């Protein structure tokens, strides 16, 4: 096994506020560890407020108060060099950004500056990394756009002149023009309709194949994960509760929460309406003791109410944090 391009270990990031002497702590990311291999698409799933966005903010070092990193480390391995992203100086960080580490952001509709032409945005983001004179740089950009089946004329357009799907494609081209080793994609297709979504996902897959980059792909949409991710991590209430190869997770989910997430996907020929999971995600300012899923869990026991289950790895590398993980037969009967 090669060394991972991203290694997150025991990461703990809380939102800490204090108003009138009252301390408040929201435990958005609690003891998260994960590793992503070169060339891998790692899917991160979970419902809203499960801490997905906070986790990527921390990984990308886009930390604004009141968010604080309390413990753990985020290590990148770019071109054989190791970078602890929280220990870098601003100048060193700027040198990595976009060259090795780029983003496709949530709400991609608005990530392009409305008063700048697409060409100027490309220059702002990528010119300093390519290291060629401007005309040659623009040739590189045009070739890249053509590879992604985009007309080079989009460079002269303003963002408002492009459709939503087109803008998202331009953003993907922007995020990949420097051939980064690692791309963070935060809900990149959530705002798009399914037809455009399919095209955009195909494009991400294609460019990932061509560049050999790793992608951390975050979405709550399990159907997207089923089609795109190589490996899948399930987040619940600030913790990773299950992780494994995507096919394994879908075929035989071990954690009861994963079972419900997958069970929520519609299948052709479904006769009965889907059952919702009762209850709501816990308040992360005051999470329940023990396993954070136990108030909603059909298999909860006294042990779950008292102790926090550790994320155990089995022989095949599948990880699950549950005292009563499902066996394959149980999982299949529920889904």
């Amino acid at each position: 096994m090669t060394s991972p391009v991203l290694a997150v270990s025991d990461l703990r990031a809380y939102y800490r506020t204090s108003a009138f002497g009252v301390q408040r702590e929201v435990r958005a990311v609690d003891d998260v560890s994960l590793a992503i291999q070169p060339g891998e698409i790692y899917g991160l799933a979970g419902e809203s407020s499960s801490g997905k966005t906070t986790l990527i903010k921390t990984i990308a070092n886009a930390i604004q108060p009141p968010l604080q990193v309390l413990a753990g480390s985020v290590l990148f391995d770019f071109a054989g060099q190791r970078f602890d992203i929280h220990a870098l100086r601003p100048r060193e960080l700027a040198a990595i950004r976009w060259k090795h580490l780029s983003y496709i952001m949530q709400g991609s509709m608005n990530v392009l500056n409305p008063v700048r032409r697409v060409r100027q945005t490309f220059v702002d983001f990528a010119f300093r990394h390519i290291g060629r004179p401007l005309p040659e740089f623009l040739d590189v950009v045009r070739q890249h756009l053509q590879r992604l089946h985009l007309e080079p004329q989009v460079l002269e357009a303003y963002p408002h002149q492009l459709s939503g799907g087109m803008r998202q494609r331009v953003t993907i081209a922007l995020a990949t023009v420097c051939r980064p080793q690692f791309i963070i994609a935060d809900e990149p297709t959530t705002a798009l309709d399914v037809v455009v979504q399919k095209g955009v996902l195909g494009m991400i897959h294609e460019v990932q194949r061509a560049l050999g980059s790793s992608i951390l792909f975050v979405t709550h949409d399990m159907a997207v994960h089923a089609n795109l991710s190589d490996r899948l991590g399930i987040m619940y209430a600030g913790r990773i509760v299950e992780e494994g190869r995507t096919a394994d997770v879908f075929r035989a989910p071990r954690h009861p929460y994963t079972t419900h997430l997958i069970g929520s996907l519609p299948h052709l020929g479904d006769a009965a309406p889907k059952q919702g999971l009762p209850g709501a995600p816990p308040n992360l300012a005051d999470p329940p003791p023990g396993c954070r899923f136990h108030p909603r869990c059909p298999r909860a026991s006294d042990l779950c109410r008292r102790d926090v289950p550790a994320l155990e790895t089995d022989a095949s590398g599948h990880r699950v944090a549950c005292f009563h993980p499902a066996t394959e037969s149980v999982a299949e009967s529920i889904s």
Partner: protein
Amino acid sequence: MKTYPTYILTRLGQFVLVVFIGINIAFIVTHSTPIDPVEQSIAAATQYGSTSPEAIALMRQSLKELYGLQGGLADQYFAFWRRILLGDFGPSLSAFPTPVSVLVGRALPWTAGLLLSSTLLTWVLGNLLGGLAGYYRQSRALRFAGILAMAFHPIPYYVVAFVLLIVFGYLWPILPLSGGYGMNMTRALSWGFIGSVALHSILPVLSLALVGLGGWFMGMRSLVSNIVTEDYVAYAELGGVKRSRILASYVMRNALVPQVTGLAMSLGAIFNGAIITEQVFGYPGVGTLLVSAVYAGDYSLVLGITTVSIVAVSLAVLLIDLCYPLIDPRVRAR
């Protein structure tokens, strides 16, 4: 979808329409005042001795011709437009027989120079500081500037102006009290004259800037603190785009769009500002001229100043509107 030339044409049409309506209103207002300039001139000319009735009738006839007051209202209206298009507003009453156009032409550079430059200066400075204050929220110096701007903003303009006059003209007399240039100067393009003009403009410009700065500063600061949370700014920061570039092209550039509209509107207020400023500082501009014209019942001078100010303000707003698509490309498509 409209193109840029169509945009220019519509704006030009609006400009012509605004000027047309404005001048019509000026015509209606001046023609409904109880002051009859012809009778006033005759009264002024005859108050020191008697003149024969035939001479007065002759005088009335030629004065009516001078002021364009012959015939019915319709005739007068068309004669009025013909003269305006030729740039002829007739002779001034209070400075007979100097033409109004000469008087206005003499005063206009002073007003334009003082108010236009101080408005632009205040706008640029206020937006720059406000933008920096919105972007660098932690900076102590900028926070202090914000408090200062907020403190000065609500003070009535004339109070600030008089306080400045008392402090720098009387208690600590380092700056001239009034006028546009030194009494003993000849109007020539010499360093001495330019220096004197600059020295005389310090207090008026300072008073206008102190009061005007706060509005732009606070407006820009709140605009910027909104724009900082926009996706494209967050994205550029994640992308490692240079901070100076983010501040200039991502934050300030987008915040400037509504501020430019504000500038166009404040240019419209220049002539209001001129009246108070020029009165307080005894500045030889259009404001002073207008006030004395109203006192003297100088009908044609008031009409001339009104017309010129309507055209000037509309022209300034038109120019800004024509630049608008360069600032916000989305306007071009609309």
